């Protein structure tokens, strides 16, 4: 959605415009509703929710659900709160995003500026790897992580996300570098610049936007992942999504809805923050991931 694209020439009368704005506002309410429910109910005592006041603003405002969710809520057997799992997610996401982005940039560079026979097939193979149902790799991956001693560890999860993140990061950089003038690269080659020199001096300085797109995409995907986290982590290495699910699904005791909502917001905050700060890049990543080319 570039801003310079042309708006429609279709003309609408004032009556129609009133209807359009009303509809747009109603749909805004639909999209905001769950967020409103989460925020409002994370700030009220449990009794108000149980009394049927889910849609109302709190009578008594309280941060207690937040501190419970963060540091004392029962996750599985221990009352640790979500804090350690939030940390797990961070130390999982950072290296996985960094390494897959660097590899993606190098791959994209090779696949566009150092083309060789069969490079399109290789790219196709990498690309299809993004879309496979991961159920197809769960069993062997669990075996392999067990054999090399990474089962149930954060490094194991980093590795898994790295492997299945390369396809997308390569896609982004390849499509971006394809637009980059090959003549510049040729000229540098004639001047005797080598593979890495060209990458560092010519490609990297202009890669800022696509690097942001790629980092945001990988960050959002890996932070939000549940399947790999649920399959390959132990209690100690659970990422945030898995811990949140355990918190919400735990069947013991009273269901503390307000704590669940506070926990859900905590799990959502990092990606929401990125979306609000750099939404433009997030949308670009989404589009590039769906409309290849």
């Amino acid at each position, binding site marked *: 959605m*570039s801003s310079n*694209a*042309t*708006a*429609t*020439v*279709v003309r609408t009368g004032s009556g129609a415009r009133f209807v359009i704005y009303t*509809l*747009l506002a109603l749909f*805004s309410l639909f*999209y905001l509703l*769950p*967020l409103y*429910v*989460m925020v409002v109910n994370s700030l009220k005592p449990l009794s108000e929710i149980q009394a*049927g*006041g*889910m849609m109302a603003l709190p009578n008594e405002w309280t941060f207690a659900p937040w501190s419970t969710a963060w540091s004392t809520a029962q996750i599985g057997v221990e009352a640790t709160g979500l804090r350690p799992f939030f940390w797990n997610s961070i130390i999982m996401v950072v290296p996985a995003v960094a390494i897959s982005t660097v590899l993606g940039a190098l791959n994209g560079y*090779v696949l566009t500026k150092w083309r060789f026979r069969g490079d*399109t097939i290789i790219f196709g*193979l990498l*690309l*299809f*790897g993004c*879309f496979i*149902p*991961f*159920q*197809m*790799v*769960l*069993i*062997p*991956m669990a075996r392999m992580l067990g054999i090399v001693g990474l089962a149930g560890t954060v490094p194991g999860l980093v590795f898994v996300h*790295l*492997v299945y993140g390369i396809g997308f990061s*390569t896609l982004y950089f390849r499509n971006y570098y394809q637009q980059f003038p090959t003549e510049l690269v040729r000229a540098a080659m004639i001047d005797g610049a080598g*593979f890495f020199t060209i990458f560092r001096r010519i490609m990297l300085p202009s890669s800022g936007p696509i690097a942001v797109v790629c980092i945001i995409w990988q960050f959002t995907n890996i932070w*939000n992942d*549940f399947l790999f986290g*649920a399959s390959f982590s132990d209690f100690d290495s659970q990422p945030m*999504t898995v811990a*949140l*699910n355990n918190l*919400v*699904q735990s069947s013991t005791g009273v269901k503390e*809805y307000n704590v*669940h*909502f506070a926990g859900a917001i905590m799990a*959502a905050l990092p*990606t*929401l923050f990125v*979306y*609000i700060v750099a939404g433009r890049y997030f*949308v670009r990543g*989404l*589009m590039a991931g*769906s*409309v*290849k080319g």
Partner: protein
Amino acid sequence: MSQVAQNRRRKDWLREALPKIVLSPSLAMVLVFVYGFIFFTFYLSFTDSRILPSYGLVGWENYSKLFRIRAWDTAVTNLLIFGSLYIVICCALGLTLAILLDQKIRAEGFIRTIYLYPMALSFIVTGTAWKWFLDPGIGLQAVVRGWGWESFTFDWIKDGDMAIYTIVIAAVWQTSGFVMAMFLAGLRGIDNEVLKAAQIDGASNFALYRRIVIPQLRPAFMSAFVVLSHMAIKSYDLVIALTGGGPGTATELPATFMYSYTFTRNQMGIGAASATIMLMAIAAIMVPYIYSELREKK
């Protein structure tokens, strides 16, 4: 051969090979951990694996067993219901919102941000929010009853026949903004000259959209279909968070079936067979799409 010439030769070789050397770790990882693992799981689907992989071949037995399991039947039926509604509603809603937003709307960027933010959330977060909002005991039903409409009933999430539709609601909520963005990008790429000419000929707005605009959105429809259908087949997290596959097995999908048969029921051979069928379904959609995309680019 002189030392110098030999050095130069080695240098030339390195220069030639360096790009391939740089690419090779990624390629090796994908070959082993994507394609090797796919082959391994495919192989397991023909073995008598139970709690652990075992290598006694049993032919098509796992597949014939799979198709006789009621829960698999439910999962496939659910996927067809969920997938078709999810795709159709997302496309209809996405297209409508895109057309509305394309009418030189004030604060367009702001509204777009609101429509799209669910895409940034984890399905676990979405599932949690909708799970309690749809819960008859405390959510919408309780609230409306509290407002005075005592007989109001909305308990789909607890109703085996209706629960699958709650998955549709939450999934549409999460992805329809994204589909809107795809259509909006398509709308912005349409050539206005044709529209102006048709306007001069007296075409109504409805006719403009039906006859000129929507037919030109074919590529956007294509991408939306591919993205949504592949997301539907892979749907796992949302079901786990929203209903856990229940009540009973009412909202089981192939992805949740595969997981429970492989890891909790210790029927790894059958789990592998179900994963293989999921892969076939996705490949049938993605391979032609990727092939055509890559061919066009050349």
